[in-house]
């Protein structure tokens, strides 16, 4: 009798639980909150050969489908996705077609990563002229965001492209270079995948070199003159980066700089040429983890960085190895929070006035969890339609930890918009591959050719075969 009651009670609770679960909690929003941009993607097709890619484009044309193009998908503003569209995963399209030792060029398929190229050219003693600071990205992706890196002597990534082939919305394959189809060439570089599929690219290379690491510490106000005197004017200085403190003790004041200068004895190069793999991921990961938690963590992260920088002073390193910066330690797995990037460009001469104003914005928002600011140099370059370097600029890359709920997004948006306003007031601009926090007006202020860019898109791809959320959000 007792058991019968027990069974009845159990079945009753079972029914209740099932009812509540199915009515309240099992809604479609349940698994969306982990991402900033929930979208549905119909199918993912790996484009292995040109014919197959052509077929995807033709099928999409016939079926009236939209296409988005994806590499590593590190762009955070929906550049690789479109709701209900077909996303083409370019990663399997990654052959190194030819390394030309004499001409110092490499021809690669666009899904290859910078690491793939480095492995192919390192045995020839060759090196990339410009690449992104981290080598995990695909060539097609980096070209589509018009990326820049640590090199201060070879202009922008676009300058190193000898030629490339692009498949347009009709499935036609076009040859693009600074001499051929130039309009399309400079639209596709920094074109965020809206002008077609970049198939293969020929890049100009240079010789691998041995560098001596030169580090220095300073306050932000001394940095521009340090950069001009010791880096820009020194012909031996080839690559450069700096960091400004995010630690409470020295917030937005202390800086350290790392410059790679041609070593006097190049004979030792061969001893340093082996490509390094990431080591000691646990150490920086630990300190970065600390700095996510609280202010004391940020102090210890900054102190650890300073100590480390001091230690590497005078170290010899090959150019190829400088271009293989670690990124694994930044990998971050959390279901409720995420890490976003922001990048602002400010003219070299404005830097000294700019930093205190940024500091004021950041101090007005103590909850804004800023983890790192890296500073690099970008030479004036206005070839790409969407060009961010109106004059010689410093770029500031900000790493920010934020929640993925609506309220956190709203808060971050407010801070980002304020920071961009400050940047624009100093004749600066901001980088487009990140989450769509900036307003349309801010984009038009930072990129005077915004309208031209979207008009070009509409003219070259009137049916909008290639689409992404970036277009949707920022079309004037």
């Amino acid at each position, binding site marked *: 009798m007792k*058991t019968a009651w*027990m069974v009845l009670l*159990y079945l009753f*609770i*079972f029914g209740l*639980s099932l009812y509540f*679960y199915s009515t309240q*909690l099992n809604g479609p929003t349940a698994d969306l909150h982990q991402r900033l941009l929930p979208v549905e993607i119909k199918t993912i097709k790996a484009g292995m050969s040109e014919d197959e890619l052509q077929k995807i484009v033709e099928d999409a044309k016939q079926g009236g489908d939209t296409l988005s193009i994806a590499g590593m998908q590190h762009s955070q503003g929906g550049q690789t996705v479109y709701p209900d569209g077909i996303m083409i995963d370019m990663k399997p399209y990654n052959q190194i077609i030819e390394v030309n030792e004499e001409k110092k060029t490499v021809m690669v398929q666009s899904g290859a990563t910078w690491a793939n190229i480095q492995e192919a050219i390192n045995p020839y003693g060759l090196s990339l002229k410009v690449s992104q600071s981290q080598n995990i990205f695909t060539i097609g992706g980096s070209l589509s965001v018009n990326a820049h890196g640590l090199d201060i002597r070879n202009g922008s990534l676009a300058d190193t492209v000898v030629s490339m082939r692009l498949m347009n919305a009709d499935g036609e394959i076009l040859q693009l270079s600074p001499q051929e189809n130039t309009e399309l060439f400079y639209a596709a570089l920094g074109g965020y995948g809206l002008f077609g599929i970049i198939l293969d690219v020929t890049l100009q290379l240079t010789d691998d070199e041995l560098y001596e690491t030169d580090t220095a510490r300073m306050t932000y106000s001394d940095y521009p003159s340090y950069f001009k005197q010791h880096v820009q004017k020194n012909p031996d200085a080839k690559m450069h980066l700096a960091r400004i403190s995010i630690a409470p003790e020295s917030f937005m004041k202390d800086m350290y700089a790392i410059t790679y200068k041609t070593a006097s004895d190049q004979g030792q190069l061969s001893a340093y040429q082996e490509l390094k793999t990431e080591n000691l991921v646990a150490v920086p990961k630990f300190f970065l983890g600390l700095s996510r938690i609280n202010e004391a963590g940020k102090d210890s992260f900054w102190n650890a960085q300073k100590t480390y920088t001091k230690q590497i002073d005078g170290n010899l390193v090959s150019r190829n190895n400088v271009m293989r910066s670690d990124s694994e330690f930044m990998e971050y797995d*959390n*279901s409720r929070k995420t890490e976003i990037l922001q990048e602002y460009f400010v003219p070299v001469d404005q830097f000294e006035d700019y930093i205190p104003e940024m500091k004021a914005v950041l101090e007005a928002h103590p909850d804004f969890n800023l983890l790192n600011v890296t500073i690099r140099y970008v030479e004036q370059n206005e070839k790409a339609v969407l060009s961010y370097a109106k004059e010689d600029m410093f770029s500031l890359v900000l790493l920010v930890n934020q929640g993925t709920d609506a309220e956190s997004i709203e808060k971050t948006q407010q801070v980002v918009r304020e920071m961009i306003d400050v940047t624009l007031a100093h004749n600066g601009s901001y980088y487009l591959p990140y989450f769509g926090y900036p307003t349309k007006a801010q984009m038009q202020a930072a990129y005077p050719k915004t309208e031209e860019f979207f008009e070009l898109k509409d003219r070259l791809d009137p049916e909008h075969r290639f689409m992404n959320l970036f277009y949707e959000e920022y079309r004037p």
Partner: protein
Amino acid sequence: MNYKRFIYYQGTIGMASSMIFPFYILLIKNVGNSYAQFGWAYGLFALTAALCYPLIGKYADHVGDKTLLAVYSWGMAILLLFFPLASEVWHVYILQVFMGMLGAVQKNSEKTVLARYVTKEIAGTQIGRYHVWTSVATAVAVIATGYLIDFLTIASIFYVASLVFAWSGMLLLKLNMPEPQQ
């Protein structure tokens, strides 16, 4: 007592609890926020268990092992029905406290039953055999659930495990155990 039936019972609850434990972590991951919260969830479990053992130990001698096993089986069957509803980390903490209590009941009773019914001279063989069959059941359950979870949601695993616990509660009826001495 029917020793085979006890093994069968322990095998059943071993199956049910191993169905949820490895995958339970996936639920905390969806609900929780950080590794620190993982730590707390499991820490609370162990801490409540520690606090409950002295009490359970005393009760075991008064009310008998069978009653405590019934409390465990039906308690787990009902508790698991609340897991799919957990959406905040404090829900998980509360569930973990109850899991800790029930877990302690099971651990203690398992050992008292063995202690009371094993023949001292061949205790090694008997306990060994007991572990063989309960472990086999556990292994089968874990592997099968791994496949099952691909087809079902994590929530459904909790419902299935709950039904198995309820079944184990029914099995207890057939288990003959001597009443406690007093």
